[in-house]
């Protein structure tokens, strides 16, 4: 019986995340004031920034779960790692779609070698390598371990990549929310952004747990095929 269940928290968090994300979209379109300098395009910010947070948060989970998997050899940690990577690459793709759209209007170009944009593109390719190693390995067991190695090596290097692309160039707007003297943006903007963080994080966690459940079921079915 248990093989057909994906758990309780996954669906709950996913539904809560979808509900909050829809509510946040309504706020973005109808409630939050239009930014004075950039105009209406700045509204993409409420999707772009929370997605970027989830993209990197997800990779943190991939790395931690990979460490636990290599350490304890527990398959549940691997299911969590691959589910987080699947969610992570989706949100990284959202960042890489919304970023150039915003950039085209705000900076006049789809792509610049701006530090955070570059880092996110590299993150996308690290995720890609994670999945390619997993799928090209001779056995599923090797694929899981090798993917974990890619996840950990990627996470170890991300701070250094971050530092180097920053050093190379930066023309992103400076943070206007997390400043020591308090946010300078109007409260509506801050609230919409914070709700975005909450909605996207819940949505990601829900999707991750659902997918982890799917991987757990697939794993059990595979075990059954080998030893009925």
């Amino acid at each position, binding site marked *: 019986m248990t093989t057909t269940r994906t758990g309780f928290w996954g669906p709950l968090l996913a539904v809560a995340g979808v509900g909050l994300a829809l509510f946040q979209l309504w706020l973005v379109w109808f409630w939050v004031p239009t930014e004075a300098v950039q105009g209406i395009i700045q509204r993409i910010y409420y999707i772009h920034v929370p997605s970027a947070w989830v993209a990197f948060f997800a990779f943190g989970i991939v790395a931690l779960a990979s460490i636990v998997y*290599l350490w304890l050899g527990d398959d549940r940690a691997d299911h969590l790692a691959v589910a987080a990577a699947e969610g992570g690459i989706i949100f990284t793709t959202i960042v890489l779609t919304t970023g150039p759209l915003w950039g085209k209007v705000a900076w006049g170009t789809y792509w610049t070698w701006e530090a955070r944009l*570059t880092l996110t593109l*590299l*993150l996308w*390719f*690290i995720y*890609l*390598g994670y999945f*390619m*190693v997993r799928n*090209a*390995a*001779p056995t599923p*067991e*090797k694929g899981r*371990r*090798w993917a*974990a*190695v*890619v996840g*950990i*090596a*990627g996470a*170890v*290097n991300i701070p*250094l*990549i971050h*530092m*180097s*692309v920053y*050093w*190379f160039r930066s023309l992103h707007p400076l943070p206007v929310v997390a400043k020591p003297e308090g946010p300078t943006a109007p409260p509506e903007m801050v609230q919409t952004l914070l709700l975005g963080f909450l909605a996207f994080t819940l949505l990601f966690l829900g999707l991750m747990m659902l997918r982890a459940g799917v991987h757990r079921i697939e794993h059990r079915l595979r075990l059954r095929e080998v030893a009925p």
Partner: protein
Amino acid sequence: MSYFAMIWEIVRKDLLIEFRTRQRIVVMGAFAVLIGILFSFAIPPGTIRPQDIAAGLVWMTLVFAGILGVGRTFQLEAEDGAFQGLLLTPVPRDAVYLGKVVSNFLLVAVLVALILVVFGAFFQVDYGDHPIALLLTLGFGALGFVGLATLFGAITSGTRLGETLLPVLLFPLLTPMIIFGVSATNRLLAGRPVAEVSGNIRVLAAFALIALASGALLFKTVVDDA
């Protein structure tokens, strides 16, 4: 047998194979010279001074030629099961990894020397007044490169895609090496003082250290069967 003696035995074995077959160094060297010839046709004469772009050419040639050689490390031994034999010896996995890194590093060092000589002759590059700083920059960069490429080479040589997968795994993580290595080399070739690049060299050293430490720790999980 002490730890360093074990590493040395791995290095000696790898270098002996390389010395007797000369497979990898010939491929890497030929690649470096041939890409130099192609670069000389690809760069329109008279519009750009080779001196100004030599740093980028040197580093990219190091990466591409290096991947050809380092990616073959494990193929050589996979063919007749020699690597399984190596794993059966009572040598810790991290010693195997570090031995491989040292032998690959020596191979890449020969390659770098060849690149510098050939590009110097082809493009009349003036390597500036600080050869030690230039060699430190290239040396730490090459060490970090070899550290990561050896770890990922062990993974990709076992996959269905083989070495073709190596660039996908390796290139995103090489960003710090290229950014800091090329900028330091550019400055040195432009005759800037060493003080301007000492920060870059420190970052390259940190990159190499991180690559070696993560490689030594993770290599065991890559090659072991369970």
